[in-house]
């Protein structure tokens, strides 16, 4: 087998190993295992990036292929994780980032020939805007999802005063989790809005029709509404802690449904990966 053929398997194997090792390292509180896991995942990340570049150069490549898009999403999640890790010192989010990257990458490999049907007026710029902003905001949401789950867990333990002796010394504080939530909302909402608007503008340019009532668009608008509400409550009204955490989890779950569920299972105008 040539390198391009085994590359996806290698990346999947490395991501899987990284995820498993990190989970094990967290369970056993072994710093070494965690570092090893991140190294393994790092190797996977490098190969993954190489794989994406190779896809770009392949004959018959089109940026609308499910394989390329999902792989890009997976890479985006890891990139955002890297930023959050370096910026906020929140390495534990690897617990969320690694398995998600694994799922999206595996999904991308499972769909080699599938292609979304695009409106005729294909514009590289719009495509980049649409995909880039949406994927970034989704990756941010994924991080927010992890931090929010951790927040709820820790908050419950502090509130109910139970199991305090098993506190991990290195576990971040409630405040840190809440800060992630803050950034996910502050940075993610504008990105998401921008992504949707670019999609609508694109649809208008291509088909003179802004809204075509397909399930994907409806769900996206619902998510935008929730996101906007969250944005407003957090910034203007001063929401903190539990409520935004619960909502970020909800928005993320909707996103996952829309990304993996609708694209594959429900017929839509432009977004389906249905063969």
């Amino acid at each position: 087998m040539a390198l391009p053929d085994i590359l996806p398997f290698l990346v999947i194997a490395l991501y899987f190993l990284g995820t498993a090792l990190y989970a094990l390292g967290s369970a056993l509180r072994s710093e070494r295992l965690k570092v090893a896991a991140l190294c393994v995942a790092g190797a996977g990340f490098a190969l993954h990036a190489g794989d994406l570049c190779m896809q770009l150069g392949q004959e018959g490549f089109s940026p609308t292929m499910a394989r390329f898009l999902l792989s890009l999403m997976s890479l985006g999640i890891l990139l955002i994780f890297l930023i959050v890790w370096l910026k906020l010192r929140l390495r534990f989010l690897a617990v969320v980032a690694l398995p998600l990257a694994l799922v999206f990458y595996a999904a991308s490999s499972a769909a080699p020939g599938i292609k979304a049907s695009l409106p005729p007026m294909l514009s590289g710029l719009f495509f980049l805007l649409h995909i880039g902003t949406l994927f970034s905001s989704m990756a941010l949401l994924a991080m927010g999802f992890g931090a929010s789950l951790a927040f709820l867990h820790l908050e419950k333990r502090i509130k109910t005063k139970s199991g305090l002796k098993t506190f991990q010394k290195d576990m971040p504080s409630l405040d840190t989790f809440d800060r992630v939530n803050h950034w996910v909302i502050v940075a993610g909402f504008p990105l998401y809005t921008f992504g949707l608007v670019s999609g609508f503008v694109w649809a208008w340019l291509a088909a003179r029709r802004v809204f075509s009532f397909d399930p994907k668009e409806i769900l996206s608008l619902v998510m935008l509404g929730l996101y906007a509400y969250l944005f407003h409550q957090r910034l203007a009204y001063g929401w903190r802690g539990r409520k935004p955490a619960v909502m970020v989890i909800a928005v993320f779950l909707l996103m996952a449904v829309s990304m993996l569920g609708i694209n594959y299972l429900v017929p839509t105008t432009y977004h389906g990966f249905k063969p």
Partner: protein
Amino acid sequence: MDKHIFLVGLNHRTAGVDVREKFALTSVADFEKSLLAACPLREALALSTCNRVEILVVADASQRREVAIPEAVLGHWAATCGGPLDVLERHTYRHENLDAVSHLFRVAASLDSMVMGEPQILGQLKTSYRKAVETGTARVLINRLLHKSFSVAKRVRTETAIASSAVSISYAAVELAKKIFGELTGKSAMLVGAGEMAELAATHLLTSGIEKLFICNRTYARAQELAKTMKGEALFFEDMVERLKDVDIVISSTGSPTAIIRAKDIREVLKKRRNRAMFFIDIAVPRDIDPDVNALDNVYLYDIDDLKEVVEENMSARQGEAVKAQSIVEVEVEAFGTWMKSLALQPTITDLLGRADDVAGRELAKTLKRLGEVDEPTREALEVLVRSVSRKLLHEPICFLKRRTREEGTAERFIDMTRRIFNLDSDPVNQDAHLDRRISGEEGDGNGEQLDCECCRDDETGARD
């Protein structure tokens, strides 16, 4: 073993606070030096904290035969502090050799502390050791022993969970605060009522980086007084709720029979502070803070029982870890014993070979000077010749000493004789390093000189880590 380690001391279990106060050595300058002058000892180290005094001394076997070392040390100690000797004797414990080593390791690893696992003791031990090194009362054995005890403490800390949990109420409160706020720098706290425990918790918070402290008391004068000592700001009791909006951590300990902080007040406060988290610590009985406060989002309330529970959970967890720690200590004590056994013979061999090389080198230099110019092969041949003659000559005596070391009891005598035959101890190597030893000016001066130097180097590397 030709050296003996003794440890005498008292701690919070053997002596009450009045006795500990009386015999504390914290304000005594150069106790080790005066101890070396007063008793026939080779090395000395004293550790004195509010909970314990430990005096660690090393004596030669010969010195030991002359005087009862622990009694002499106790006598000097009592005289230094001006206290009655019989009281001191009643409250102290004595350990010898490996028991002493084991005790020291336990102290360093904080297994012997009042609050097991508390980290301060190691720092105090390091300070005492540094002092002893500076005054020159720590040498071969104490150097090795203390470095070992630091590494044992480190092992215990990293391999067991003994130091990982909070075991005092104020410490538990600070730990919880850190779980909620992350770093405490820039946060503010308020004391409501001025009890002793509240003060303690506040001190703990201040050392963890709290920036602003408000003190609020029914009697304003008392609040002012406390504000002065703790560098806080005194508030009128009536303004308390009003000012809560600027406060992240509240420690309450008033004698009020009813709750003074209510959930509906806090709901208003939270709106004003845009839901930034608040942590309430209620150490008053009956409670000062309405328990419903805990049901509010972003507000966390712990009362004295909750904190006690945290502490007790941690305590029981620590007991289990203590067993693990003890086994680490035992392994290390055994290793130290093995090292000590080899110590008796090793410095003698080193000295012996060193002396031989020294003589050979000097004679070689003289000969070369007399011969004038010689070619390289000749010079090398001469060098090999003198060295091998001197070494071969010592081969048999060294083998003999090694054989004697394996037999119990006889080695000491032969090593002593060897040192005298070769006059190994008359050589002053480092003039100023051993000034204090000249005072006791005995025949055994300079014993293990080379190892001393080695240990001085060890010490430098140790100080760097």
